[in-house]
């Protein structure tokens, strides 16, 4: 692994990685027990995989199941290996590479959505401009004073990036994002 890194002074038989790096979204169904998230993220750090986004929450209370959504990147070989390594973790029930699955279903991508809270402070014309922009992006005001707004915005990561970009010069204070929640289109479950 880490084959894309240049050999340093003390490695082994490293051959340069030529395959293209892709970004994939994985859904991981796990038993909700102490330490399970540490096992998953420890695997990523221990084996040198990347995490672009990570969300986790209990999804089935009675059966103690949580669903972890991870956006990661790597060459196709590395991505295959990440899936296999995740499946070795004892409390992991199921791993689905949503990006691969979408391809098999003839779709471009799985549905991927994010929620963000965005705080903007300002007065006068910029304040009115922020509201107009929020309206265009369908961002909801969830808190406000005469000096600030907090918006709630839902959508693809790119849409949130764009909204953050346009309000930045208008008094952006802080941003909090949930990371990506994802599933495949169509009637089947993961």
């Amino acid at each position, binding site marked *: 692994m880490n084959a894309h890194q240049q050999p340093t002074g003390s*490695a082994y038989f490293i051959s340069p990685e030529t395959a293209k790096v892709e970004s994939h979204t994985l859904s991981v169904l796990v038993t909700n027990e102490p330490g399970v998230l540490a096992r998953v993220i420890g695997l990523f750090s221990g084996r040198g995989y990347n995490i672009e986004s990570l969300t986790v929450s209990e999804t089935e209370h009675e059966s103690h199941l949580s669903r972890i959504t991870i956006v990661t990147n790597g060459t196709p070989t590395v991505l295959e290996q990440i899936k296999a390594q995740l499946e070795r973790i*004892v409390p992991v029930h199921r791993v689905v590479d949503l990006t691969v699955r979408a391809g098999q279903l003839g779709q471009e991508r799985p549905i991927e959505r994010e929620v963000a809270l965005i705080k903007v402070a300002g007065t006068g014309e910029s304040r009115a401009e922020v509201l107009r922009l929020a309206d265009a992006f369908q961002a909801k005001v969830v808190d406000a004073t005469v000096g600030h707004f907090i918006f709630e915005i839902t959508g693809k990561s790119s849409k949130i990036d764009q909204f953050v970009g346009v309000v930045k010069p208008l008094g952006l204070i802080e941003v909090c994002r949930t990371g990506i929640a994802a599933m495949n289109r169509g009637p089947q479950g993961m």
Partner: protein
Amino acid sequence: MTDTADNGNRMTGAEIVLRALKDNGVEHLFGYPGGAVLPIYDEIFQQDDIQHILVRHEQGAGHAAEGYARSTGKVGVMLVTSGPGATNAVTPLQDALMDSIPLVCLTGQVPTTLIGSDAFQEADTVGITRPCTKHNWLVKHVDDLAGIIHEAFRIAQTGRPGPVVVDIPKDVQFATGTYVPPSETLAAKSYKPKVNGDLKAIQAAVELMATARRPILYTGGGVINAGPEASKLLRELVELTNFPITSTLMGLGAYPASGKNWLGMLGMHGSYEANMAMHDCDVMVCIGARFDDRITGRLNAFSPNSRKVHIDIDPSSINKNVRVDIPIIGDVGHVLEDMVRLWRALPKKPEKTQAAEWWSSIETWRARKSFSYKNSNDVIMPQYALERLAAATKGRDTFITTEVGQHQMWAAQFFGFEEPNHWMTSGGLGTMGYGLPAALGVQVAHPDALVIDIAGDASIQMCIQEMSCAIQHNLPVKIFILNNQYMGMVRQWQQLLHGNRLSNSYTEAMPDFVKLAEAYGAVGMYCDDPKELDDKIAEMIAVKAPVIFDCRVANLANCFPMIPSGKAHNEMLLPDEASDEAVATAIDAKGRQLV
């Protein structure tokens, strides 16, 4: 005892531990007491079913349990205290993880109320051992304890075997709870290892094998782990197909070294014929091995023209380092059974002549005699010492363990293993200090067998304290030190890579091993004369006590043949070509970066 006639399943956590071990068939336990496991030690004191072997360092407990496990096929069990007890267990846990050895490690923990308070001898054991175990648990409630221990045994020995840790706080050991037997324990639904291979894939593999003109079987520790039946099936498969067979360090003994199809070990210090055959083959069948970097050499030059079949119980081993054409996920034993049956059922078996040319190439490579060395009348050559040791133990039930380094590679090259489970060595992690405690574990399991730790003078000093354990428990292991007064493999690499600047690889202030043996109450022997070697070895074997045999060998011998780093299988450095100049220039500037 809190057992009462009307409720036999109510007992303390410590009693639950002993009962659970007994119900999982444990007869021996390797451990070291301490504050956080005193209640369990108190229960050990009050029973006779399980024998406790007191080591002198927790690392020793782990390696002893590994040796025990590898020589019996059973789970090895160790018991250590919290904090330093657990951290000292980390090395054997990682060792067992890398070599797929079933190990259950019970650790004491500070009371649940003190966890997180930086209490005396507290360490985050589950956190520290998470990456070096197959799974681990912190037991927070006494009623969960029995179920977790049963599950620990199941997970350690099924699928790809490995180490597990059960961390038991002291208050849980004192608390009273209900014992649940293994049969009534709910198994984790998420853990379901696949043991049977896909029949279609096996059929495809058999058909591919039947077309091979240059076939090879490349086997590994997975065959040993699958049990003695798998070794029998492997031998049957070789007999049926007449394929040449090589093995990794971990798989030695699955096919007998005296077998006519045996090519010797492959890899960095493997035989010329094995590596050349791997490079030139057209069909490779990898059985329970994992294409480790010491095996493959330069990956982009690894067996370039072969179609590859890979049998492994761990799906993550497939396509990890080398892409294969036919992956078969399953237990080696089950898959080999199907493979043998399907081969027998082939409508048209390959003609005997199909691989005739291949065998004649192999004979040419064999004729290079890549393990040859120049013997001497004045000094004992390390290879000669091992040949004589092998000759002296022929026909006896002999178990060999090793430390790590040149002596380990020479042992693998020269000993000649005929049966599985008789060769214990630290392959993946390469743990110096493994051999002596592992030998103790083997001797505990096989009290009447001859158990020899083939050691180096540097490695042996890493767990030498276990001599006390050998004496206390009357374990007559033989420690055969190939003493060249160097960390031989380090010195060899410094010669190859660093202009022979022998930085810190000379062992200054070497102890007198004979006196050291005597200080422990064992027998010490010394030999530096090739003419006396046979008699002294015979004497060592005859002694009914632990022996440290200080065998003084040529100081500067190198371990050949060798695939220099950055090179492919067909670019081996052979002993007859290894002049000082060839050795000095074997690895070019680019290769130097890659070692």
